[in-house]
């Protein structure tokens, strides 16, 4: 491996280690004359074998790692003059994680590209459901099922009639775009993306609130999201300008789901749940940046953006019950419209060589212009009769302003200090606190005695106060945490050290505490601690070692209900440790990458008080181990063999799902799906032959 001085350094070490494992030292491939074009690229064919207990939703999530043949290719065709090109990246051609990217154009002038990326979002592959019609908008119970309110009778029937049902959907992302430089200083871009989701996900519906009678079921996922973006950018020496447009259209083909009632509760056999409505969004923006005239180097950058969101999906009737009360609707749809306005201004200047200043103002207005809808009655669920009353669907708005001033002064060539003050104001027209003000003080010190020895310590003190709080119908002592008075202290340290020429250490640490004063219930205190170390050691020309460890802990304390009083403590703790080695076993012939990563997490939910009624929940725990040994063997000048072994093991416990049956504990007549996530253990062997051209 060729070592240049900067390979000792952290990012470069990583890059070098990676590139050492890439044949031909990276993505460089030989050029081949192929008829009228110069071609380069590669074709890969491989086989992956997997053994042991790996058929878990967790193993399959977002990726295709099942046994089988795999194929991939990448190529670049150019004309002999090196002006025009056609290139492609084709990954996982035979699997469920397919990814294609194709591009063509002329270097430096224009580029046309398109692609497809696919993956599965897998929630569970061991769920059980009695319902027929999975994936459709109408779920019915099988013939022979007799509705009952007796939990034991229901369970017996469910066990006999339920069948396995995967909970997963496939997401395909199609993209197309054009990038065009018609002139030296003009850049035009247009892109289109289509997100297509198809499958199922868990959902639920209640037939007898309050008190439950809920059913869990496989809800259909069948929607399309179209997105368009376009921009024109003027690029001049001392100023530039950008006009942009983003548009998006969400079309849900499953805008409701009807579920047959398995209980005797109510008067009908069907309940209906509305799903996400179709909606449209548009956003226009104009951004500009310029060097300011004058002797002081200064620059201004600004953006003005206007957005429009619309939603006019037809309302469902109050009730799916044809025989029940179904009050008239005041209008057929929401005719919803939200207008957003953003203005942003940043001015940076260097009045002295050792002093940088920055001023910033940001204004964001989320203005929901939808008229309030007044309902004179409500149907709690499809089995209930209408309840008279005024039910006002009031649309919510907010406005947020930020203003800040920052000064950064270089005390010495090695030392820089920064101070910043920021004011953040929220105006919420229809929430409990109309105005909240944050005052933020940030201090930072950078010390860089040598190019790659660098330490930054930063501290932030932030205080938030509301200006009047109306709890409404909630307890007078309640203050929602996103508006409550708060004092926040945050400390962060990042350091990159070079104790020896061949060793690089990256250290990070952080403390963050948000204390919510003047509130009696709900979230009271939030504390985070985090620390991490990453070490890289260039031992020899042929061996690079690396390791890391990180720790992350967040704790939320909360005060419980207004009646009885209880306190809760919730903690998330995570440890990650990893080691790795990159070896050049036979220079130019055989490289190896060895790595091991252990991830451990624990989520605790504790409670006390309320005369013993509050108790701790079992901890949610998981750990993931990945051991990998990969070898890159160059067989011939244009052929290489990548082979290796990977071991993965996942163990997780989550009391909320692990013991989930078809009905909840206590024998109540509710329907669960017994959908949890299995542990897995997988031995993965793979070999891939790659032919380069």
């Amino acid at each position, binding site marked *: 491996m060729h070592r240049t001085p900067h390979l000792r350094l952290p990012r470069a070490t990583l890059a070098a280690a990676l590139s050492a494992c890439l044949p031909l030292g990276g993505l460089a491939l030989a050029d081949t004359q192929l008829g009228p074009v110069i071609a380069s690229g590669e074709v890969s064919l491989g086989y992956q074998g997997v053994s042991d207990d790996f058929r878990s939703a967790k193993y399959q999530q977002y990726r295709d790692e099942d046994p089988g043949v795999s194929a991939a290719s990448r190529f670049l065709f150019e004309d002999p003059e090196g002006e025009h090109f056609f290139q492609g990246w084709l990954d996982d051609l035979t699997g469920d994680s397919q990814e294609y990217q194709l591009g063509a154009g002329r270097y430096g002038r224009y580029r046309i590209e398109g692609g497809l990326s696919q993956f599965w979002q897998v929630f569970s592959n061991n769920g059980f459901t009695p319902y027929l019609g999975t994936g459709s908008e109408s779920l019915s119970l099988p013939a022979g099922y007799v509705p009952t309110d007796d939990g034991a009778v229901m369970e017996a029937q469910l066990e006999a009639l339920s069948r396995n049902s995967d909970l997963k959907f496939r997401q395909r992302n199609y993209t197309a775009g054009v990038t065009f430089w018609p002139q030296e200083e003009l850049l035009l871009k247009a892109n289109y993306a289509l997100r297509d989701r198809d499958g199922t996900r868990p959902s639920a519906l209640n037939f007898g609130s309050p008190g439950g009678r809920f059913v869990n079921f496989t809800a259909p996922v069948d929607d399309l999201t179209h997105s368009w973006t376009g921009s024109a950018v003027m690029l001049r020496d001392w100023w530039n300008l950008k006009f942009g447009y983003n548009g998006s259209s969400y079309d849900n083909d499953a805008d409701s789901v009807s579920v047959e009632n398995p209980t005797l509760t109510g008067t009908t056999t069907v309940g209906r749940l509305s799903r996400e409505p179709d909606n449209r969004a548009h956003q226009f923006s104009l951004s500009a940046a310029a060097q300011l005239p004058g002797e002081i180097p200064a620059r201004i950058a600004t953006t003005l953006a206007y957005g429009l969101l619309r939603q006019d999906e037809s*309302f469902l009737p109050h009730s799916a019950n044809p025989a029940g009360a179904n009050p008239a609707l005041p209008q057929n749809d929401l005719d919803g419209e939200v207008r957003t306005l953003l203005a942003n201004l940043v001015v940076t200047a260097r009045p002295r060589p050792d002093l940088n200043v920055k001023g910033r103002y940001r204004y964001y207005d989320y203005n929901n212009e939808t008229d309030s809808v007044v309902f004179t009655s409500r149907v709690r669920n499809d089995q209930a009769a209408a309840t008279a009353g005024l039910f006002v669907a009031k649309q919510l708005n907010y406005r947020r302003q930020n203003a800040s001033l920052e000064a950064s002064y270089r005390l010495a060539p090695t030392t820089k200090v920064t101070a910043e003050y920021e004011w953040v104001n929220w105006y919420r027209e229809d929430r409990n606190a109309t105005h909240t003000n944050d005052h933020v003080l940030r201090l930072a010190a950078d010390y860089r005695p040598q190019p790659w020895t660098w330490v930054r310590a930063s501290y932030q003190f932030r205080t938030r106060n509301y200006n009047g709080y109306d709890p409404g119908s909630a307890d007078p002592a309640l203050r929602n945490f996103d508006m409550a008075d708060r004092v926040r202290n945050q400390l962060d340290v990042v350091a990159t050290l070079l104790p020896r020429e061949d060793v690089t250490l990256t250290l990070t640490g952080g403390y963050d505490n948000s204390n919510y004063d003047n509130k009696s219930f709900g979230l009271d205190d939030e504390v985070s601690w985090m620390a991490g170390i990453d070490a890289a050691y260039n031992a020899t020309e042929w061996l690079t070692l690396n390791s890391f460890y990180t720790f992350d802990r967040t704790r939320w304390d909360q005060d419980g209900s207004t009646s009885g009083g209880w306190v809760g403590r919730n903690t998330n703790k995570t440890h990650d440790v990893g080691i790795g080695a990159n070896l050049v076993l036979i220079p130019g012939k055989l490289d190896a990458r060895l790595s091991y990563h252990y991830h451990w997490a624990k989520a605790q939910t504790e409670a006390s008080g309320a005369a013993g009624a509050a108790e701790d929940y079992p901890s949610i725990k998981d750990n993931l181990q990945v051991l990998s040994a990969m070898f890159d063997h160059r067989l011939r000048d244009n052929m290489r063999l990548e082979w290796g072994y990977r071991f993965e093991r996942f163990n997780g416990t989550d009391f909320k799902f692990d013991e989930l049956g078809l009905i909840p504990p206590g024998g109540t007549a509710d329907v669960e799906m017994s959908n949890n996530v299995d542990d897995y253990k997988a031995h993965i062997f793979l070999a891939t032959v790659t032919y380069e051209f």
Partner: protein
Amino acid sequence: MSTILLLYLLFTAADASAQEEKAAAEGYVGDEVCAACHQDLLAHYEKTPHAKVFTSKNARTPLMQRGCEACHGPGAAHVQAGGAKGAKGLLHLRADRTEESAKQNAACLSCHKGDERLYWHGSTHESLDLSCSSCHTVMQAVSRAGLLSARTEMETCSSCHLIARSQQFQNYHMPVREGKMSCGSCHNAHGTIADKLISDHTINDNCYRCHAEKRGPFLWEHAPVYENCLNCHQPHGSPRAAMLKLSLPRLCQQCHPSGHAGSPRAPDDRFVIGSSCLQCHPNIHGSNHPSGNRFQR
């Protein structure tokens, strides 16, 4: 006709000659001179987008036509010094030259100005004296796109953001480590309008790019939802289902500590297990049902 052609050729030849003289006067030596000594770098460099564009036919600007010297500056002094290191006038695009980060960045920004880098000046990374070469490698295409210094965005970013890397290994996470998303799906490392280098104008706008179904507006809005998805979710991953900060019902009880929601409830309570509160309030992100004011319909 032939006279015109002859005059044209003489004129263009004279013009080319004048340009060469001007270039020489400015200290430019040309790619061939660089290649004579730096042959070892060319094999990789020739495959990079820069090498493809920095040619006489493809260059969009006069600067791009300088080839190596478009980025490194005029090489005459370096050549005259016998290629010695430290020869004045030659810009080294390396991350360890932090004292020159502003100069390095200016060289890159001379072509890569505006657009996604409009807010680079004064941005988080700029204020840390990072240079473009802290994250990008110009001479070799290590990554599939973007000339990153590591093979993927996640590997590049995680060389400093160690905690964020570990969070991607949480049980519930976005498909970043599986390669279906990248850090750049949500962040623009070159500076943005929003906090935390979020690409879009707000956090929610960022989330709506993939979760457009949550965008609404809904008939019945849940205020903390449309203001900030991060009131409830941890975007880099969580040990708790749905990337929630806390398990239900505790998360809901942070704002709803009274009434039926306020009971601490035992761990085997049917309103605790499974999807907990969402079994009766499934449309918690907002409902468009006329009777959905409690997000039950």
